[in-house]
């Protein structure tokens, strides 16, 4: 499972070896969850020395592996030293797998560290000025948040009977999560890093590096919500709600008037994390109120959302890499790509639609489950005068996001003279087909 570290010094070989390693990891995962089919969620846990194999970890790990496989070839597009990039990427995947599967404190810290270091090294390895400045900012803030993480884990573990300490620990953890995931007001690095670095590492960053943190969040919230008395639990929920709404608003409003595509996508990442935190909030609330229905839906929705979000973001940033020539890619410079590269532009179209949440794509199902879970009548916190206001806010934000996605779609299909170089990038972009297929098959699978 963690056997993914086989780098080598030659460019192409490292890529090939990396792919093989990831494929092996995927195979091992598939083998290990086989006996349980797809019925797993967190409920059935098979303890393995602090290492859980359940629906959560399977989803996150497989997603991370898959996206890693998609992005790996893109390392050839970097200016120099691609094998280190592959190394860092694989490390990051390993860290994500560790984060999503463990509740052992040391493993958590180690995993988080792996993810953090690999993240900013990937960015810096790209070599250009924007990436270098981005990686420095990222590294600084990452260091700080790492400390927050360590402290919070310590607090959580050592709080056996003291609720206040547990809550404090959770809050600090939320700060760390906020940093990693890009939740306001901890998100300040994100538009700069995602927006100005080389898109290749960003595509890996934005898609998978968050997933580990969020998976960890689920486990911690699961534990603490059950351990805390209701009053404290509600505080947590309220905080999560505030964070979620903040993320949605900042993300969507910030992206509204952007003309640089990469920065726009950065803001969109923030918004999407907002929806994911919404699922976290609902999950916690449902545990506190004792509503298994909502808990199930929130969790399933979140997992689907992980997969769809990761695939989409990988594809989007890969596309941006292919479409940009000099430095900044603006809406105007994208005009004409529709006719120049019809297949890939069509894939981007599908990916953007998936981010908006259009059925029958995968993203729709994720949003549906998450929004619907928040509208559960038993969770009274989310209801004012009978209206599930939280769901309504999320829907409104989702509608708001349509605007800037459509602008991108529109500018691709306007007549123009842009062309793109999509070598090695097509796997990521073509992952859109995976989104369609998964989206259509999902209802069938779920009903089984």
């Amino acid at each position, binding site marked *: 499972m963690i056997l993914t570290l086989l780098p080598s010094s030659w460019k192409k070989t490292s890529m090939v070896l990396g792919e093989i390693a990831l494929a092996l990891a995927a195979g091992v995962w598939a083998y290990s969850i086989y006996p349980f089919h797809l019925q797993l969620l967190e409920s059935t846990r098979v303890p393995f020395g602090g290492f859980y194999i359940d629906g959560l970890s399977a989803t996150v790990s497989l997603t991370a592996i898959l996206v890693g496989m998609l992005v790996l070839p893109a390392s050839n597009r970097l200016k120099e030293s691609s094998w280190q990039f592959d190394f860092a990427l694989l490390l990051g995947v390993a860290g994500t797998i560790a984060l999503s599967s463990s509740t052992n404190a040391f493993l958590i810290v180690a995993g988080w560290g792996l993810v953090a270091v690999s993240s900013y090294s990937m960015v810096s390895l790209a070599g250009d000025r924007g990436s270098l400045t981005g990686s420095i900012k990222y590294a600084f*803030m990452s260091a700080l948040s790492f400390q*927050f993480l360590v402290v919070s884990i310590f607090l959580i573990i050592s709080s056996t009977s003291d609720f206040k300490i547990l809550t*404090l620990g959770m*809050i600090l953890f939320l700060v760390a999560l906020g940093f990693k995931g890009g939740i306001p007001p901890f998100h*300040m690095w994100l538009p*700069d890093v995602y927006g100005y670095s080389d898109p290749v590492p960003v595509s890996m960053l934005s898609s998978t590096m968050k997933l580990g943190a969020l998976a960890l969040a689920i486990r911690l919230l699961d534990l603490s919500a059950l351990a805390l008395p209701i009053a404290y639990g509600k505080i947590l929920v309220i905080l999560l709600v505030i964070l979620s709404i903040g993320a949605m608003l900042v993300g969507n409003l910030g992206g*509204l*008037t952007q003309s640089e595509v990469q920065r726009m996508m950065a803001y969109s990442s923030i918004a999407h994390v907002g929806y994911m935190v919404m699922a976290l909030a609902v999950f916690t609330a449902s545990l506190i109120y004792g509503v298994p229905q909502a808990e199930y839906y929130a969790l399933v929705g979140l997992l689907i959302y992980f997969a769809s979000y990761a695939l989409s973001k990988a594809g989007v940033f890969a596309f941006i890499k292919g479409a940009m020539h000099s430095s900044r890619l603006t809406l105007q410079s994208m005009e004409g790509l529709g006719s120049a590269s019809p297949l890939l532009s069509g894939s981007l179209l599908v990916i953007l639609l998936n981010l908006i949440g259009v059925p029958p794509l995968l993203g729709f199902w994720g949003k549906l489950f998450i929004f619907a879970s928040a509208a559960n009548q038993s969770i009274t916190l989310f209801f004012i005068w009978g209206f599930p206001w939280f769901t309504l806010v999320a829907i409104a934000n989702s509608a708001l996001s349509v605007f800037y996605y459509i602008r991108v779609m529109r500018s691709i299909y306007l007549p123009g003279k842009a062309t793109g170089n999509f070598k090695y990038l097509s796997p990521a972009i073509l992952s859109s087909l995976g989104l369609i297929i998964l989206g259509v098959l999902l209802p069938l699978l779920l009903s089984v």
Partner: protein
Amino acid sequence: MSYLYLNSIWLLPFFGAVASLPLGINHKKGASLLSSVFLAIPALLSIYMVYAAFSYGFKPFITGFGWFSFGSTQVSVGILVDGLSSLMALLVAWLSFSIAVYSYEYMEDDPGTHRYWFFFDFFVGSMLLLVLANNLLLLLIGWEGTTLSSYALIGHWYADEEQRWVGDKNRYALGVPNWSTPSNSGVRAIVFTSFADIGFIIGIGMLYQVAGTMSIYTISQEMPLILTSLNREGLLLPFLFLFSMGAFAKSAQFPFHEWLVTAMTGPTSVSALIHAATMVNAGVYFMLRFMPMIISGAQSINIMSSVAPFFLYIAVIGAFTAFMMASQAFVSNELKLILAFSTASQLGYMFLAVGLAAYVTPSVAFFSAFSHMISQALFKAALFLAAGALIHEYSSRYIKDMGGAWHGMKWTTIAFLFAALSLSGIPPFSGFWDKDLILDLAFQSGIWPVYLLGVAGAFMTSFYIFRAFMLAFSGPSKKEIKEPGHPMLVPYLALGIITLLFGVIWPYPVNASNWMYSVLTEDSFVKLAMPPLPSFNVYSLSLSLGLGLAGLGFAVYAYLGKRELLDAQLSRGGIIAGLHSFLYDRWYINSIYYRLIVGGFVDISRVLETTETKGFDYFYNGFIPSALSTVSVKLRKAQCGSISKYLTALFAGLFMMMLIYALLLILR
């Protein structure tokens, strides 16, 4: 033996419509022939249908096939054959066929014949469906079908050339134009009739709700129960008013009469068919179909006194319309307009007769309405078709431009004369018998205002039609004119002769009138008392006959030779001139409608438009985008690039969360 094939009577014209449309674009004459053939077959079949009805003793029978079911009702497509429907179908089918023959020549130079024939056949199919329908839904479909084709045919010359207008250009009444173009008239027709159809549909809904069925036969059987439950809810009178509202509009009774006037923008053959002989009779058919049921039902449960106000309303409206429209025909300058007013006026007499059913012997009243309907269909069609020939020859719709037609168009003169005499109620023509029967009934009922209006109308009727006759036919000839060809001439000449024949055989015991009378009342499902036809009251007879002759004589005197005399006197000023304008501008009713209703709606729509554009539109497309963009721009300014500021923000977030935590702890 199954009479299912009799359904083809109403189906075939629809096929003809569809078949002739593609043909009509290139082969005009072929399309005309094809359409006419598809009308000839129903005409022949209708004769057979009357025979079939006869063999059933004119008891109603239904033949059809199931269509769909909703709820627990099975809606079927089929026909109800009894005395009333078979005779009406006979009338409609033959008139349609003869007018189709007329149209063959009349429309031959027209560029839009394919449209014409399509809607012509569509109309005939709808009308036959309406008359023969065995359930309310089918009747409604036929009803609306006639509305649609009427709209299309009135607006046939949609390019609105001035010669196709009705009314005087540049004449305004109370600020509203006196003239109307074909496209405008088409819209008016559809608006007036559809507006009233709202009431009709509500009525059907109420009936269905109470009766639980759409079948006319079943409704007639259950009428006492229906009336009882409606009366219990206090909804009886509203129901009656709403249900018959459509009929009032279709037959151009006040206040829905305006559309018929401007409907004269259509081709004359259309005017003859739709607006004289068939469609406007649909309202009368409706009355004849349903009012007997209501009367007999009300009689059986003794609530005649609750129902009587409604019938009084019908009688008053009918009489008033008869009077009002005749007064407008009095001064009109266009030949077709005179005839249009005349149609509405005669329909008023029919409605008067129906309304009197609550005050005299019902069966006699209904019979008189039916008989007058047939007479009016015959002579009015003849008049219109002849008018079409005249207008075509003189290339003008104004009677002032005509004159001396006697010299060149002898047969037309004879046909017009016969029809005019029938309209005026001069024996031995058919119009005499039934108009006098109606006036006689009015006299008997004791409702004086209604009688007086009817009598005054009779005087005006003979005056205006002979005014038209004298102005058009007598005097020196203004142009070289000749008789139209056979396809045009034969139909109206035949109709003129038939109206004479019909009148001749009317009074004899073993004959048309008694036979129709028995047919009608035997009809069924309505057990009305059937005394023998009364002999005429001498006083009223002589009064109406005298007035008719007086009107005739007056007109002849006024217009023989001294053509312009009367009209010149009228326009000289003073009260007479004011009265003249009042009548000429259609009692200003059109103007009132326009200023009040149309103007009112225009004002409302203007207000709504402002609300929409300045309100909603601006809000969604102006206000919200600009507000959000401003927020967005301000938000982005926070990204300043300095790490220290970012770290500060992080700590700020941390403290904020701590603060919230503390606050919530205190509050809980």
